[in-house]
């Protein structure tokens, strides 16, 4: 099965990205957020997974799974990455410390990334220019990782498809 996993911190746009490109109505497990810190940013949060699929130009069906972003649901991460081709990591440039988020997710998924590959989408660059692509690339280099990074808007299908095509391209080599 061609399966790609979207991960990243809460609010980075994982659920939106899957919904934007899915050829079927996506499956959400979003529930209302009950803690004030989360409620300040969004009303709902994913607690299990998101799911959709996209059929590519060559008729390949690619299944898209989204992880919960909050660390207390980290037990879902190995469940969802089992058998997956690669990882799409979304980071919110307007978050408090997106560079720390990048380091955290590269470490958390290091075994999976080593076996497969990752592409990184930086979201909400229109809201915050705190860090540039070069800043994120520097962290990747610290981890001896050379993978594509893009500024994206998860509401734009073309942006999300760029991530998927980039990931599939690197996985072929």
């Amino acid at each position, binding site marked *: 099965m061609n399966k790609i996993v979207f991960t990243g911190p809460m609010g980075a746009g994982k659920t939106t990205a899957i919904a934007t490109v899915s050829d079927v109505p996506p*499956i959400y497990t979003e*529930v*209302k957020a*009950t803690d*004030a810190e989360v409620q300040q940013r969004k009303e709902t949060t994913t*607690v*299990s997974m998101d799911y959709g699929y996209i059929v590519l130009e060559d008729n390949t069906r690619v299944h898209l799974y989204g992880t919960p972003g909050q660390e207390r649901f980290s*037990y879902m991460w190995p469940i969802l990455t089992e058998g997956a081709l690669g990882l799409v990591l979304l980071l919110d440039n307007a978050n408090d410390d997106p560079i720390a988020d990048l380091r955290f997710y590269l470490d958390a998924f290091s075994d999976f990334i080593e076996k497969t590959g990752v592409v990184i989408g930086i979201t909400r660059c229109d809201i915050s220019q705190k860090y540039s692509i070069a800043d994120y690339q520097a962290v990747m280099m610290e981890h001896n990782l050379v993978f594509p990074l893009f500024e994206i808007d998860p509401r734009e299908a073309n942006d999300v498809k760029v991530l998927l095509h980039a990931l599939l391209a690197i996985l072929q080599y």
Partner: protein
Amino acid sequence: MLTDAKKQELEQTLKGLLEQADVIDAAVVVTVDGHLQAMAQKQDYPLERVAAMGSSFMSLGDTITAELKMGVCRNIISENESGIIVFMHINDSMILVSMTTDTSALGLLLSHSRIHAQKMQNML
């Protein structure tokens, strides 16, 4: 999030559940987004993690039920080699997770959990 007084009330109700149904080993009340609110247990279980997992499991049950247009998901039963776990909504915001190591006690676990979930619904 609940007040400390409300959490204590819930904890008393969970203790009542474990006393009335001797086969029940542990029970937790958790928000739909995975925050532990109250717990009672006879053994040492990792209930913080169980709380988060309970919310994931319940949301999957709700999602499957909605996908198949089967109304409201009343409860989810996990029957295992060494015990049974039941997940059920208390209300729109809270979930009760209860468990037993007695593999023949499903009926007892379900009925007592349902009664106490109802009590807690009235309380909240």
